[in-house]
């Protein structure tokens, strides 16, 4: 079980969090023309990479904040965690 540092609450066990997918995905702006390909990339297409991955987690049984976690998908090593509005990389 992972041990995740919530930037708001501190070290907490994984059971307090829920996973939210790739954090590098940017939602297209509202009311903007967008191609089918771009939209598909946003909704469906993910890299599913091995190695360092920036991902979203929500501290669902804690402060309920969405946070960003930089994690190695192969080793589960967590390099860093960020608040939702913090710049990353």
């Amino acid at each position: 079980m992972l041990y995740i540092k919530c930037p708001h609450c501190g070290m907490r066990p994984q059971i307090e969090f829920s996973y939210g997918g790739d954090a590098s995905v940017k939602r297209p702006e509202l009311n903007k023309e967008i191609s089918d390909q771009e939209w598909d990339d946003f909704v469906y297409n993910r890299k599913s990479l091995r190695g360092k991955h920036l991902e979203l987690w929500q501290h669902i049984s804690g402060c309920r904040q969405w946070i960003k976690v930089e994690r190695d998908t192969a080793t589960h090593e967590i390099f860093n965690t960020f608040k939702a509005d913090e710049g990353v990389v």
Partner: protein
Amino acid sequence: MSQDFRLESVGLINRDKKLSFKFNGKKYFGYEGDTLASALLANGVHLVGRSFKYHRPRGFFGAGVDEPYAIVQLYRNNETEPNIKATEQELFEGLEAKSVNCWPSVNFDIGAINNFLKIFLPAGFYYKTFMWPKSFWYRIYEPFIRKAAGLGVASTKHDKERYEHKYEYCDLLIAGSGPSGLSSAYAAAKNGAKVILAEDKPRFGGSLLTDDVNIGNQSGKDWAEGIITELKTMPNVVVKNRSQIFGYYDHNMLVMSEKVSDHLPKTKKYHPNKRLWYIRAKEVLISSGSIERPIVFGNNDTPGVMLSSAAKEYLKVYGVLVGKNPLIFTNNDSGYETAIEFQKHGVKPVILDSRKNPESEIIDEAKSLGINIKNSYVVVAAQGYKKVKSADIASISDDKKQLGKIENIKCDCICVSGFWTPSIHLASQSGNKTKFKEEIDAFVPGVSKQQETTLGAANGVFSLEETLQTSFAKGSEISKKITKNDNEVSIPNVVEKKSSQHDKFWCVPLPAGKHYKRFLDFQNDVAVSDIEIALREGYRSIEHVKRYTTLGMATDQGKTSNLNGLQLVSEIENKVVPAVGHTTFRPPYTPISIGAIVGREVGKHSKPTRKSPIHAWHEKNNAVFVDAGVWLRPRYYKRGNENLFEGSKREAKNVRTNVGVCDVTTLGKIDIKGPDAAELLNRVYTNAWLKLPVGKARYGVMLREDGIVMDDGTTTRISENHYHMTTTTAQAANVLSHLEYYLQLVWPELNVNVVSTTEQWAGAAIAGPKSRNVLQKLFPNLDVSNEGLPFMGYMEGDLFGVKARIFRISFSGELAYEVNVESDNGNFMWEKIMEVGEEFKIQPYGTEALSTLRIEMGHVAGSELDGRTIPYDNALEGLVSKKKDFIGKRSLQRVAFTADDRQRVVGVVPLDKKTSIPEGSHLVKDANAPLPNPKLGHISASCWSVEYDNPFSLAILKDGKNMIGKKLFVMSPLKNKVIPVEIVSSHYVDPKGERVRS
């Protein structure tokens, strides 16, 4: 029966407490502090079971966790548990155990015929034999294998024992209470670190209980006792015996199984049977020690052949002689230590040492005691079927390839020592890449992957002095880093006898013309010949060899077999052992009962149960409850002998004709506040929200980004910047996360706060033509007329002194209101509604009537909004704004979503107006078409229409828009039903929606 093999006044057992127990129906006696194994051996019982594949007689090989085959079925307090190691099961009064894997009895086992057919049961036998013909698999092979396999029978009864889970945090977790564990725990504890010290055995001390050593001028055992006693008094230390750390997981999370009650005849009241500890440790010190390695020789699985360390433990801890005429077969000094103990207690052992001319203090002591030592001698084969009777021995050449003349000597046990294998399982599980240490012919932990350090014998250090020095130092060093304290602890002086270099010899060659089975893996019946076959057949990777032959698999995880297996592969392949590598060690290290893993989450505790504040009233009024997610909701209120169908029909009918009341507390409620609240709703819902006036409610549908409907519900504008959103019961949590996601990550510029208020409000839906009369009685001072409180209107009122929110919204399709009060007043509100409603014939209605009402009205719910449908499919396209953008809108342009023949919700009525339609049935054009019959749609919800008194269903049907009036067939192969039906509008009752506005 007397305990013929018990020594007087030796051992750590409590001779004042005699215990009786039964093995295979026969009564025996032992003492408190015995294991089942030691008690049986004291009674001279060596035959415990039959082997897995060949059904060969099996006895005791180890004295603890190292035991590969003394596995029994245990009976305790009218329960039974399989897969219990007799060497680990402590004796209690009235214990009963039986042998496994034998029929009709352990003495006469029909399956032993496999032993004579063993030429037909080589490695990969199952793979080779049971492959064809294919049709035989289910009927013949699988049942046969299932019957033949397994080491015990699981109980089919409900387990009455309780199991607990515990979460713990510590600075240092120390696995094992031998010399290394005790030293490091003591040093760390002195620095004020929070320490957990875990020992799998009942007694602390590990090898100090059996080794003849001296620490700080006391015996090792006394020193251990002193340390433990002191540790137990320290508030920062938790000391646990009977506790096995069996798994090392991510981020220094380790799991430990504590046997709280297994040593007692019956679990004490309020005590668990086992407690599973999830421990998050800053640092882990692995002091798991080492396990003695066997030397491989012919018939080395015969009862009476055992590890020399086990024989020593039985003698020193339990006062039990495993034999009175022992033969010791060793390649190192450990065998001598066992022999010395025998000799000291009046038994004359013979030592066979594969080494030519070893010299050490230990050997000198053995010689001075007059023990018969034969150098360059080996056991070729054990003789005897159910028990060792003699041994074929021979001298061996210096290159260990040639045997001398075979002689037979009488003996009643063979104690074997092939040196020691560090227990590196936990280190390996942590991700540590192990390395091979040539001096000890074994793997030891390499570079740490997590915060773990392996010490002592587990790290391949067999000198007590060195172990103590490194363990004290490590305990101090690591704890100092954490606590910043630096309290010096003096390391006691150690007196131990120096030993000589072991012999790399591990397997006795077969004498010419002999075909003895020489076992490597005792639990899985894997012999030298099996590995040879696997390699001959082309298996190379050690992982493949393992799976093909089953070497090192199952509960044993290769504790005694791993290294010898690797030695064999390396010899045949002409590689060095490290090049062969070892297989992956997997948790659990020892078998853990499923009950412990499940913990308290069984039966109704497998998930939380949420109850509305009106629950007690429902119970009192004969509600039959149904699970709605984690909520318990009344399904119907049973009157007399009514069944579900009759009761729900009555309730629904009463709503249509009079008035009903339904507990809707479970609906998700989200409070939304802030100047940008309207903007948020406008982006989240498909319809327009910017112009909703204060005091009005609106129905809304929200989508996922992929265009699929996520949830629906009403949201009410309570005041300028304050909205009250309702969600479905099931989606409440997801919708909140969804809103938080967009507010925190996508549109942080929106000034809005959302919070769940599901628990804060109790809700009652009052529905039916007479609902306004009830409402007026509840709020006599309010104008609740159609003008005063129109459809989708909202007002606040005083309900007999209680603040209430009143919404004019309807799920039933009737004139209806929803009243919310603070949860604590929920029951008060409900009772008032029932009280004032009595004159209008009010009845409570449950979820079944609720469904009936919404289905015949054509209101979509969870069964249509099933995560596969878009707004159009639910006839909700009118709510999809063309002007503004919202979550998921772009996806609605997908080709499939705009197809002319897109699926759509429709109503379904059986032609005979009688036959109920099973939910989940398929709609087809031709009931007699050849399979696979093309499916046009499926029945999503069914009810008995109380308006028309006939069955009615909703369906999601391909090209539903153009199917109204068409005749199709409903097919349910599960219920074996074919029903001719007509497709009608989904709005079966009051299609114009006049009632809700009346």
